[in-house]
């Protein structure tokens, strides 16, 4: 069989010329070129890494499906990564697609349905009586409460529930020079054209502090909108890290009403519904936790 399976073709093609992710021509680096696609910035005792590569290929997708036990979203950036390391202790927190998807409900205990599911089912009762089995029920909205993968420091440093600290918003609102900025997407699904589910990470580093925002934004049209935010704040001078996790949710109709009541025209409501920054203050907080870790 193997002899049959061997490609007949010419010798393997020469290695593609790889553009770095910062090139103006879109890059298609081989996933093996992880280092070339990783930007590293060091500030004080901390190292920040951001890796951006194309969506995963069929092989890695099959592997990931297997490891996770659920089908992955159609846009899966399996090689992407954001990582913050405290170098002296080797403590780190990282964000990747596997970690995020591993926190998705894999049994579909509270299965969401698209807005027109009832109509869809009703009009098919006669013809499709026999087709009853829902294929692999799981939370296909890919809602996750992932707040990073932590690796303990050499001195046992770990994030622990809050000690009165909170992220100093006033300091972060100042227009301090930005020494490093990156945005990395971990996965995205169009929910079969019923909305969007996207997990993206943004990081900005200043001389004395940095902020990382990792956000799950899920809008199921006509049904519900969710924003799960994990913010990681690092104070380089005082050597501490705060992690804040906030889960927010609002029923679609209620959100729609709020947007209309704010004086928006129908077209502007459509646009607003695509922008998590506009929606964020209109959602109801469901859960909030704060953890901190201190070094030296």
């Amino acid at each position, binding site marked *: 069989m193997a002899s049959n399976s061997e490609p007949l073709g010419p010798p393997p093609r020469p290695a593609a010329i790889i553009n770095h992710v910062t090139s103006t021509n879109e890059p*298609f680096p081989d996933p093996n070129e992880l280092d070339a696609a990783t930007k590293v910035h060091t500030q004080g005792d901390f190292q920040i890494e951001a890796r951006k590569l194309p969506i995963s*290929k069929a092989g890695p997708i099959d592997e990931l499906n297997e490891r996770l036990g659920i089908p992955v979203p159609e846009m899966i950036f399996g090689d992407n990564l954001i990582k913050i390391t405290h170098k002296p202790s080797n403590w780190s927190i990282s964000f990747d697609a596997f970690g995020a998807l591993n926190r998705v409900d894999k049994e579909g205990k509270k299965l969401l349905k698209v807005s027109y599911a009832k109509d*869809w089912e009703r009009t098919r009762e006669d013809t499709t009586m026999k087709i009853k089995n829902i*294929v692999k029920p799981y939370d296909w909205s890919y809602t996750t409460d992932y707040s990073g993968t932590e690796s303990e420091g050499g001195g046992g440093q770990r994030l622990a529930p809050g000690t009165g600290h909170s992220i100093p918003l006033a300091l972060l609102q100042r227009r301090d020079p930005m020494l490093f900025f990156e945005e990395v997407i971990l996965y995205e699904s169009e929910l079969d054209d019923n909305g969007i589910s996207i997990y993206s990470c943004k990081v900005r580093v200043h001389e004395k502090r940095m902020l990382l925002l990792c956000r799950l934004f899920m809008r199921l049209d006509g049904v519900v909108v969710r924003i799960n935010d994990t913010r990681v704040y690092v104070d380089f001078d005082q050597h501490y890290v705060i992690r804040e996790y906030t889960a927010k949710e609002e029923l679609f109709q209620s959100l729609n009403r709020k947007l209309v009541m704010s004086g928006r025209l129908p077209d502007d409501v459509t646009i607003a519904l695509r922008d998590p920054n506009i929606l964020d203050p209109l959602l109801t907080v469901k859960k909030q936790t704060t953890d901190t870790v201190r070094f030296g």
Partner: protein
Amino acid sequence: MSDLDRAIAQLRSCRPIPESQVREICHKARELLIEEGNVVTVAAPVTICGDIHGQFHDLMELFRVGGDVPDTNYLFMGDFVDRGFYSLETFLLLLCLKVRYPDRMTLIRGNHESRQITTVYGFYDECIRKYGSANVWRYCCDVFDYLALGAIVLGASNTLSTGTEPVDEDTEIEVCDQSGTVMSRFPRPMPRPNSAEGPARSPNGGGGGSGDRTGPPGSGASGSSGGSIGNPTGAVLCVHGGLSPLIDTVDKIRLIDRKQEVPHEGAMCDLLWSDPDEIDGWGLSPRGAGFLFGADIVKIFNHRNDLSLIARAHQLVMEGFKEMFDASIVTVWSAPNYCYRCGNVAAVLELSEDESGTGLFARSNGDVGRSDGGRGVMMEGETFVRNGPARRYRVFQAAPQDSRGMPAKKPVADYFL
């Protein structure tokens, strides 16, 4: 130069044409499309393309790689609009080419060719932005309602036409890159009695599911639609999404009243929305709407309709194409670097012409029971698969960003909180 040729030239340079001209062209297109059946018959050679999604510059790259119109005969399987920044220019160019060269250009409907979907996913906004009113969007949507739901490709050869390099007779699948350089070739497997394992399923490891055959597209194992060399191949059905439990023969597709907005119910909806999956029989999507279908469904359908292959689009695949279920169905994806951020490659599928000329007549044209004496449903366990056409996949990357006349997309540093 006629007005139409001028419009084509203007659209090729990615500039919109005046509203009055859009109206005229949409009107002409509708007159043309209304004459087409729900399932258009297309003779090989033909180049089959998947989703484009408004990525105009990548469509130009597709024409560069696949050959220009009218030199190459094209079949586009829908989803011309939404997501990308140039849905308008993309759709209007394809439509103008359809009007100008009706026999060289086949357009079938995707789930995005719908009023409801385009309102949410970008095409509507783009029309408003570029024309200041929704008129052009309305003209286009009226054309959408007349697009065919599928196509049947007849007369495809089981050997490849000579590309840039000579091809052996027993090559079933060839994958080449955008400059035409052959990346890999797969011979047609000899029929082997009693092969429990069977040859590996497809160039990108589709049906098999194991993760060890990765690398450049087509670097996996051999393709396989069995059968002996020298027979004309079965027909190829092209449809945007997939099959429907309400449709057991291609003739039933022909009976649908298609001239309407894509409905939420019925066979028309399924043809544009359903997906193949590694399951037995039919399944319901966990989303609460939409069907999934397994290998057995495809094989029974192909057998009953004398098809050798179903070509469909609708799902993003990193390698640009993905053959599944012993090469009985293939997903073709033609939007490279989808949404300008996925970094995927795209592909088109070339079927060459059976030069013996017998293929067009010797077979059932996708109608049930014409060549097999009305044999019924395939018996369970039977592994009969129609001899597949030879397939050349041309894989290509996104157009260089500097050709787009838009600024390089770099993350905009912002003081997010």
